[in-house]
């Protein structure tokens, strides 16, 4: 049997070709796909996130780790579906209405995928109604809002308010982030969660949907 700690290493070092190759080998050896993800792939991305928070990794290292994760997941996801394995959660992400910035949003989306979440990325300039409609359509547990501009921050409150007013939203949670966003602002508008960085967003998403790190 292949030593899958090498898959962990390949993802952490951003070696997407090796990660994909090792994932294929593991599947060929009939290794349980869920255990591949839970024991090696998500822990590798979690470690990448820890290194990012510690300023050991920077954005490029994080992104190439996410690329390696995705390369392996392309092979493993169909097997997970065959086995009816659910993702850690479903998250609708997007940059709020009037705001066209997407660097932070894209980073968070990549890290959430790396953390085992299914991500529905609505892009930029997303209206409150679009967030709620997509969350309802996809059965999402969580909406993640991004804003770079102080002038577009108020759009976050509009989403939070709409979620609270929408009977279809059920137990849908809202988390927010972006350069001008603070915990104080999140509390002020009634958001359920907040993170000031992409790695922390994964932990916050896990807390909100009630799952623990692999």
């Amino acid at each position, binding site marked *: 049997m292949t030593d899958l700690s090498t898959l962990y290493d390949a993802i952490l070092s951003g070696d997407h070709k090796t990660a994909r190759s090792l994932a294929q080998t593991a599947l060929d050896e009939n290794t349980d796909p869920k255990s591949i993800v839970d024991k090696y792939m998500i822990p590798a991305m979690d470690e990448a996130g820890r290194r990012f928070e510690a300023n050991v990794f920077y954005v490029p290292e994080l992104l190439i780790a996410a690329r390696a994760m995705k390369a392996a997941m392309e092979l493993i996801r169909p097997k997970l579906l065959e086995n009816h394995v659910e993702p850690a959660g479903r998250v609708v992400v997007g940059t709020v209405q009037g705001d066209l910035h997407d*660097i932070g949003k894209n980073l968070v989306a990549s890290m959430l995928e790396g953390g085992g979440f299914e991500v529905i990325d609505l892009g930029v300039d997303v209206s409150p109604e679009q967030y709620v409609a997509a969350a309802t359509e996809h059965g999402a547990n969580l909406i993640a809002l991004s804003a770079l501009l102080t002038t577009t921050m108020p759009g976050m409150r509009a989403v939070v308010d709409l979620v609270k007013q929408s009977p279809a939203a059920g137990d849908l949670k809202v988390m927010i982030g972006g350069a001008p966003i603070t915990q104080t602002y999140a509390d002020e508008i009634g958001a359920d969660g907040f993170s000031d960085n992409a790695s922390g967003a994964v932990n916050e998403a896990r807390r909100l949907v009630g799952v623990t790190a692999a």
Partner: protein
Amino acid sequence: MDGRVSAPREDFIRALERQPPAGRVPHFELVFFLTMQAFGKVHPSHRSYHQWDQMEEKERELHRRDMAGLFIDTARRFEHNAIFLHPNPGTLAETLRMIDLVRELSGDTYFLMLHGDATFGIPNGAQLEAFAYRLADDADGVKREAQQMVDNAVRRAEAISQHGGLDGFALCSDYCFNDGPFISPGQFSEFVTPYLVQLVSAYRDMGFYVIKHTDGNIMPIADQLLEANPHALHSLDPQGDVDMAEMKRLYGEQVCLIGNINCGLMDTGTVEEAEASARYALRHGMPGGGYIFSTSNCIYTGMPLERYERILDIWRAEGNYAA
């Protein structure tokens, strides 16, 4: 009463060269976008001139003069020492005409600068992943592109230098998020610093002043920015935890410092918080000179004009060196 003791341009240069200060601390903003509120005119950068070539020359000249006048009116009303020209269209020919027009209309009153960066900054969202992948997969190709960008910028600067009238360049590639640089200090030393060093050196050799701007937390790469030897660092972004007092202590003997007034607080903070940020920047930036009063970004669309006018009142009252 204007606290200036000499021409705005000379005061600005004195600060850039960290000469002993006199009179009022110089001031400028990278951009003042609120021209509709202040003057009833659309900012030149917000104008769409896609029919520029179709216009009669007479009409083009009216537009040029209108934009030049707006740059000068902004500098006069808000007492800027420098004008950061944003020619539109941005061709070299129109850029040179704009320099000439502003000089014709305002003489040597103001320090004139243009965009001049040619180093890799934070790519936009769609390109960020691709850039990260290139750093990993094609480092040599990235370096070749970096060199080409510098070479092109130097050629443009040579043409502007031969033409005359321009004082300097503002290098506005953003390198940093609030929590640090977009690439590691190690990668920065490989893919940015060598090219920034070349660029600043070439501009200096042509007699231009150089202001390096970047938002965010620059502290992990501040030494590398200084290695490039710009005359000034701009932004000193408090939202990225850059502190004027610390910058003054660490780098005040090496480079002129510009900015640090918290744009976030000017926009969404209380009046008192915005005032406190302006006073903090003045208090810690002024000692010994080598300091220019400015916000940590620009007067951007959506910022309340009265907040900007309020911090200018503080500057007029408290930004004066003893005679």
